[in-house]
């Protein structure tokens, strides 16, 4: 046993004991944050106070941001894949014109929206889609020429459907909402958006 080894071990041990109170302080802060959030929000319009309650994925992504431990990430993504409800008729394509309207609409689910107002897709808030619409956001990647670049086949249609239904099945802490999973868009609406991305006649591919 050499001196270096002893110092090394002593250091590891003392660091480990230091790490415990630090971790405890971190989780105390996490707990206090949740307590404050649960107390300090209230119902307004359709946005009920219980919206601040997190599911496991939301909680993990808040804590680890985009650095989820690998095992947790794999498990969460597998669970999200499991929860995708694929179209019963096995068809993924709807009407791209209806899809374009949905993509344009940024409405939905805020406390200033009415329960009867249908939610839009918010797609242009974050993505470039058709070349004609220049007021697009850039939080997500450009989807211009999506079909032309990626192919129009059934595999790609299924992928697009899955992405829109539940983006977290592909990337646990993605910034994109889970439109199908959270009941924001219906199966038919998601098909219309798939068509917007993958119909050769859609402005996305023109």
């Amino acid at each position: 046993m050499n001196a270096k080894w002893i110092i090394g071990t002593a250091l590891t041990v003392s660091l480990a004991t230091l790490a415990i109170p630090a971790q405890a302080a971190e989780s105390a802060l996490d707990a206090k944050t949740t307590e404050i959030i649960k107390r300090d929000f209230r119902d307004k319009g359709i946005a009920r106070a219980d919206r601040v309650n997190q599911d496991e994925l939301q909680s993990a992504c808040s804590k680890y941001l985009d650095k989820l431990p690998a095992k947790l990430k794999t498990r969460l993504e597998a669970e999200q894949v499991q929860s995708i409800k694929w179209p019963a008729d096995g068809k993924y394509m709807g009407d791209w014109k209806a899809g374009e309207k949905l993509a344009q609409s940024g409405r939905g689910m805020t406390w200033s929206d009415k329960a009867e107002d249908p939610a839009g897709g918010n797609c242009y808030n974050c993505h470039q889609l058709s070349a004609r619409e220049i007021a697009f956001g850039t939080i997500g990647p450009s989807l211009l020429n999506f079909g032309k670049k990626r192919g129009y086949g059934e595999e790609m249609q299924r992928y697009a459907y899955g992405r829109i239904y539940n983006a977290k099945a592909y990337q646990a802490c993605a910034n994109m909402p889970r439109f199908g999973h959270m009941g924001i868009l219906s199966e038919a609406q998601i098909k219309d958006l798939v068509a917007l991305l993958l119909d050769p006649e859609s402005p996305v591919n023109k």
Partner: protein
Amino acid sequence: MNTSNVKKLILLLALATSGAVVAAEGDVSDSDRIAQYREMISDGNPADFDEMRGEELWKTAGGPKLATLEKCDLGKGAGVVKGAYAELPRYFKDTNKVQDLESRLLTCMSTLQGSSAEAIAAQPFSTEKKPSDISSLATYVAGQSKGIKMAVSVKHPREKEAFEIGKRIFNYRAGPYDFACSTCHATSNVRIRMQDLPNFNIRKDAQAAYTSWPAYRVSQGLTRSFQWRLNDCFRQQRFPEPKFASEATIDLTMFLAVSANGAAFAGPGLKR
């Protein structure tokens, strides 16, 4: 600035934010356009009117106790307004709380003037029909820090804790869209539609964003407080409503204000 200039400006900006001009001008972002108009009105800002209204309220006896707010301690001693906003939020011994500007104004309005905090909090923001007193007071007090460097402290353990919790609230994902502040404000050089989004993890962005509120919003024709800004972002986040001047909003403000430390306060600002 005189009223005809204000009217001209409002018209210009209303036009600029309408879809027609967006299409005609190509992909000039809203912030570029705002910068152009800001230059054109460098002699003033419609928020000046709200500042004056706030000053009047500060100096006029009111509330059941018919007192002015001139003895209000905003952290730099009773009655000191100059530079106070640049050091808020901070810990206050008398309330044993970390408070932002609006929550501190609530304290003063209830202790000095005898007004009910609940009644004031019931109309925290201005509407077209009715200006909000607490919002005007906030514009006045903030304006008295113009040009002063942001120096918000986290020395007191409670201040440090508020900052830490604020940071967690910033990253707290929930609701039907899984959004957190960080969904929209933790990446550089991104925008929603044509609205550029500050990245609060980058000091320069945080400074520019934080130091420009309260601000006159041309699209609404109203001067808006920082509490309003948070409230509207929580709306866009699809969250329920944060209670006015609640601990959650104060802690979040603490995180953002500390992120802006070192920059000269530049508000009241002007926004689309």
